[in-house]
């Protein structure tokens, strides 16, 4: 009897300390991570005129989807979404076509200059955007590419190619070389080994990298601000234009923010594991 109650008390004590030292502080951190989103979402459900009532309300009195509807009727958000999708998907496809062979080469072959070339891809990843901005602007003007999809796709390859080469090299390294050797014994040449044997196995890593490229292109603001104008207008630029207006329509703006962030978060959850693995592998070993 006494033993039983002692154990119970011990359990309750353990539960209390865990609540104080783990659950509560971590819950606060998670709350901090989510709070801006919750607030943004609540605002997006509030009619514009209710935002400036004298009494401060946390929950909208008359929740409504008008802001979301106005996004598409008043400011042509559908066009911005279309531009963003076109740019992000093309950047992803072009980036993968270029970096898959490059990283396969880094992973499978030992050749003269390999280390230097790999280091080069790491170093250019660290240069500030402002170092490339002005010459790319001049170049696009010279080529007559200002305000086109192509200008953004070219500019985005400056950061997608180095990053995705590194990430993919890691994924290819994780695939045993015996697979390539077996394919060649079975009569594949080197190109078909890559295309027909290694690529299907590497598909999870390749799609994770592709989604990552899509996300970064979808989010990009700085290049889009100087290289595009009235013709091509991606979502970040459309949102920034709304912030720039004299009286900011916060209901509309928060709705636009929610629409733009949700696909990114959903995509991210798909590739979370691979991305984190690729990101931390080098650092932990090194």
């Amino acid at each position, binding site marked *: 009897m006494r033993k039983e109650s002692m154990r119970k008390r011990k359990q309750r004590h353990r539960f209390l300390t*865990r609540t104080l030292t*783990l659950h509560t502080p*971590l819950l606060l*951190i*998670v709350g901090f*991570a989510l709070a*801006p*989103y919750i*607030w*943004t979402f609540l605002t997006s459900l509030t009619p514009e005129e209710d*935002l*400036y009532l004298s009494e*401060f309300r*946390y929950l909208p009195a008359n929740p409504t989807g008008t802001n979301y509807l106005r996004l598409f009727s008043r400011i042509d958000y559908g066009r911005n979404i279309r531009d963003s999708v076109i740019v992000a998907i093309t950047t992803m496809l072009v980036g993968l*076509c*270029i*970096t898959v*062979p*490059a990283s396969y*080469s880094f992973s499978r*072959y030992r*050749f*003269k200059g390999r280390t230097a*070339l790999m280091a*080069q*891809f790491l170093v250019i990843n*660290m240069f*500030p*955007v*402002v*170092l*490339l*901005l*002005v*010459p*790319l*602007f*001049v170049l696009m003007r010279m080529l007559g590419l200002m305000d086109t999809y192509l200008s953004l796709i070219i500019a985005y390859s*400056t950061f997608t*190619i180095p990053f995705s*080469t590194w990430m993919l090299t890691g994924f290819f390294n994780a695939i045993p070389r015996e697979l390539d050797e077996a394919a060649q014994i079975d009569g594949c040449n080197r190109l078909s080994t*890559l295309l027909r044997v290694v690529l299907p196995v590497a598909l999870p890593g390749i799609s994770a990298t592709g989604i990552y490229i899509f*996300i970064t292109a979808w*989010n990009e*603001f*700085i290049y889009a*601000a100087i290289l595009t104008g009235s013709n091509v207008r991606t979502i*970040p630029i459309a*949102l920034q234009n709304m912030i720039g207006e004299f009286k900011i329509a*916060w209901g509309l703006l928060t709705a636009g*923010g929610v629409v*733009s962030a949700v696909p*990114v*978060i959903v995509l991210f959850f798909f590739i979370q594991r691979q991305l*984190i693995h690729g990101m*931390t592998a*080098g*650092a*932990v070993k*090194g």
Partner: protein
Amino acid sequence: MVHVSGKRVDLFPYFLLSPALLITILVIFYPIIRTFTYSFMQYILWKPTEIKFIGFDNYLKALRDPVFWISFQNTLIWIVGVISLQLLLGFCTALFLNQKFFWRGIARSLVLIPWVTPSVITALMWRWMYDGNRGVINDLLVRVGILSSYFPWLANDKTALYAIILALMWQGFPFFAIMILAGLQAIPDTLYEAAEVDGASTLQKFTRITLPMLVPVLFTSLMLRIIWVANSLDIIYIMTGGGPGYSTHTLPVYSYIRAYKGMDFGYASTIAVVLTLLITLFVSIYLRKVLRMEDRGAV
């Protein structure tokens, strides 16, 4: 296969690399060289007849330019502020997430959300929360009694930079949390078990095992993060546009404003080159320190 001085050189790996290399040369190396040449030129877009080489004049101008020095100082405050806050919160988060409990998987996923949030969204959400008329932060602070009336956090030159630092802490702390968590999980349990047998306290286990074992992860993630934060520009630019006055000008923001608003490509390039050189200098000193520590066996 090609024969060069009697040796067989396999061209296939180079063939696979060639598209990536070609694009890199065209859109990265060529532009970098151009930026270096522009930095020695007077090059204002709307004065095309006056484009000419002026030697080191832009660099001398930067030395005498008070805005350059304000931006330089702000860059340092920005880096130190953002990195220390992100590291502190990221470290705590990693320690919590390293324990076993029933909602750990969900917690880890939710904590990562700020990190994938687009900069424009981060900027607009925080701008709305800081708002001087209707900001939820002001409302909360007044309710708790810390403030007596609403305060325009982003419109005041004393608070604007720190307000943005807090927003970037929010966006970036998951990076440290994930890196440190990976480091924590790589520490073998046997070390802790041995320490327990020897009667070590929780604090001793932390300072003698956890911290030293995390040093490599901390060095790598700190370096990557410092470079990234030093270069970051979109959040600041969208939240305040560098103002009020010059209070949120950092070097990348200043260079961007010079290029984008002033169309002064020469001087903007000079600032970009100076920023790059400063970062390169920092990285080389940092790496040398780390390598020396490794030689002494401290890492």
